[in-house]
């Protein structure tokens, strides 16, 4: 894993992080396809991106 990359929380693959990444940005793992959210920039921290749900209304 390079300094600018993070390890996928799902499959452990190397996920590229753009140099101009922003807090809250959603990254996609190229190997397993899962989405990851950048929750902190310093230190660079990721979490699984928010789940997508469906709902009725309005």
């Amino acid at each position: 894993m390079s300094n600018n990359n993070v390890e996928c929380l799902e499959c452990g693959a190397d996920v590229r992080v753009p140099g101009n990444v922003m807090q809250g940005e959603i990254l996609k793992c190229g190997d397993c396809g899962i989405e990851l959210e950048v929750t902190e920039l310093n230190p660079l921290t990721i979490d699984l991106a928010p789940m997508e749900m469906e709902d009725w209304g309005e």
Partner: protein
Amino acid sequence: MPSELLVELVSRYSPSRHETPAVEYLVAWMQGHDFEAHIDEVGNAFGRRGPANAPHTLMLLGHIDTVPGEIPVRVEDGLLYGRGSVDAKGSLCAFADATALAIIPDGWQVIVVGAVEEEVATSKGAHHIRDQFCPDLCIIGEPSGADRITLGYKGRLLVDFSLTRPLAHTARPEPSVGALGAAFWYEILGWCAAQNEGHTAHFDQIMPHLRSINTESDGFHDTVRLTVGFRLPPHHTPTSVFAEISRFAPSDATLQPSSMEQAYQGDKNNALVRGMLSAIRGQGARPAFVSKTGTSDMNVVGAQWNCPIVAYGPGDSNLDHTPNEHLPLAEYDKAVAVLRYLIERL
């Protein structure tokens, strides 16, 4: 203590086209909390904090009307009961409370609108606002839950079908008009099922509903009338669906489309969504995204403004339009904190 604004506004029952007392209250409240506020040309409550000539605008577009059905307003065990507590005065009041509390960043104005007539097909208030402004960011005030962000709403189409034929003896072999109306409906069901193949999410499917079917006779002619509603995914426009299903109608049938709204689905990677994710996490919560199978004023303004747009507000939308509509006050306070966090970090 519950928000005074929330309790007072929910207490002012305001079904569509009867919003004036609620609008007057909200405008007066905003005037008392450092907003420039007035009632606009179509009756919307309008309030602004920050300079009108600021280069950037955050539009907080809520609606102040409700569906009919007055519910006695009361607070029990931390829940506020009342018509509109969830859909959507909770969201609108959270917009106003958060904007009033926030320090507005330099270069920004924050506009709060309580639009009229969202719960009827006219969406008069949102159409007016859509043509007056072009904001940088927009949040639609609808209940998503304080920890969730609504990214999209499905589109909509209503079709009225009418077929009249001369009365014939039922011993004759020709199908009745009622049977022809039913056949039209079954053709629609089959076409929708074919279109939905491979789409597992409800948001991505065409959802047809037979809203009514009636036959009548004047002694000389039989008539069948159907109203069919469609909830549409982003990849089907109301116009294209109407054209497709028109093929299934007998040539002497009359078809009338109405309530045509294009679905809208926002992007997940933009400044507004990033800000909302941080704001929700800032309250110690884990955010989630949601797509809705209904429609809202997002459908009205989304395509024209073409800016980052989400819907957000406290409450469970499963309680929308129900006699049990109620809003947890703790969730309301959380939504105010999320919105204030967002505004102060624009």
